[in-house]
């Protein structure tokens, strides 16, 4: 989505403040960093979006990889509870830390397989229940 050149410095080192005490922080297009990063980290759960990012060579950009590493703060409290798609988001975030996966997801076949597997699992996991 972002198309400008990126630098390692562009990703902040500390996670953004949780909404309660982040009232006066700077806004980007009307959104806080918390909102944007929450949206982005959950968008990563969509295999097709990952495939798109890979096709735009984002996943081989060292700065972007560093950003993915930084995004791991979503796996911890107090941020964890804001994920509304926790299962897929956490799994994809974990997979994205592996270089092999970052290289492989450029294949539409893999994206498609992840897509159909995810759709299948989403209805099957509670089958016994």
């Amino acid at each position, binding site marked *: 989505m972002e198309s400008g050149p990126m630098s390692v410095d562009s990703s902040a080192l500390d996670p953004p403040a949780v909404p309660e005490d982040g009232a006066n922080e700077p*806004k980007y297009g009307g959104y806080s960093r918390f909102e944007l990063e929450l949206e982005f980290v959950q*968008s990563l759960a969509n295999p*097709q979006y990952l495939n798109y990012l890979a096709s735009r060579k984002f996943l081989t950009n060292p700065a972007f990889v560093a950003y993915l590493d930084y995004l*791991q703060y979503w796996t*911890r409290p107090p941020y964890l509870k804001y994920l509304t*798609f*926790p299962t897929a988001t956490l799994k994809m975030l974990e997979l994205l830390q592996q270089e092999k996966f970052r290289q492989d997801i450029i294949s539409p076949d893999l994206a498609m397989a992840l897509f159909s597997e995810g*759709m*299948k699992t989403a209805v099957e996991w509670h089958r016994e229940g």
Partner: protein
Amino acid sequence: MEKDLDGRFERLEKAIGQMIDTLAKNNPSSKVAEELLAAERELTEGLKLLETHQNNNARIQELRQETSLLDTQIKDIASSLWNMRKELKAIPTTPKYPTSTKHQFTTSELLAYARRISRNTLPLPGVTNGVDMTPTQPPTQPTEPEDSFRLQSQPTQTQTPTTSFNLSFNGTVGTPGPMSAPTPNTTTNDTQPTTQQPPPSQQQQQHPTKATAEAKLPQHLKPAVNPLHDAAFHPWPTEDKIRMGGLAAIQRLVDRGVDPRGHDPEEEERRQREEEQARREAEERARQEREEAERRMREERERMARERERARQMEAAAGGGGGGGIERRESRGGEGAGAGAAGHKPKQFTFLGADDDDDDDEDD
């Protein structure tokens, strides 16, 4: 030690030699005999000393061995400790996120979270994503309410509208566990009246007929039977959602050449509204001022006209005309009565008065 013993041996030997000499000379002396005894006693003592010496020596050797053994042991331990330390240091540890502080949360928080994510983790009843869920139906069907109901409705199975209604009612309101299971059931039951399946086949074997019934239902009727027919459940944000999100909004801003940093559309809109408001107020004010100015000008003109009129009347009065010094209205009445063109003409300056006069003339 050896020297000491040697000395004692020598003394004994000497004493023995003296003793033998005295015996050989056949002149035994008690002094020599005593000397021999003393020498012998001393030697015995010396031998005893030697024995303890030897014992001590053995003990020393033993202890030395023991210490060397312990030394090697302690060296082993030290080296293994060193190795262990090295291994421990070599173990990769997670550099960030120390889990020292446990995050506290309450049950209500947990439940609230569970409720919040449930719509994204559990599909709506009947949404199967194309996965064949039928194998799970037999175990879920023999639950109490449905089962007892089926027994009741068995003889009147052909009147499927009621059964399907009840089943769908059970399916949607019933236990949340087998949520997805009952709904396919309802759809298949709904299909029965439309396809007019022969009742006997239904009763003898339900599941295969269900499958065929569903297969025979025309494709375009399926959404009517089940509103969620083609609905898919995505366990992640769909492309539409991503395109509607804040990141997309920022991309649009960037495309328009706006730097999103510090740019707030709401703020922008508010500012624009305020500007618009200010502009409108300014216009309103300008309009009012213009009207005020016009009004003033008109008043001024009227005043001037009045003054001129008065001056004329005064002039006329001074000139000997009738009605001098009286009210204008009256003077106008006088005009109507026939003041002449001299009185009428200046009146034309104020249109209304002239018109009135004309009307009056016409009326007359």
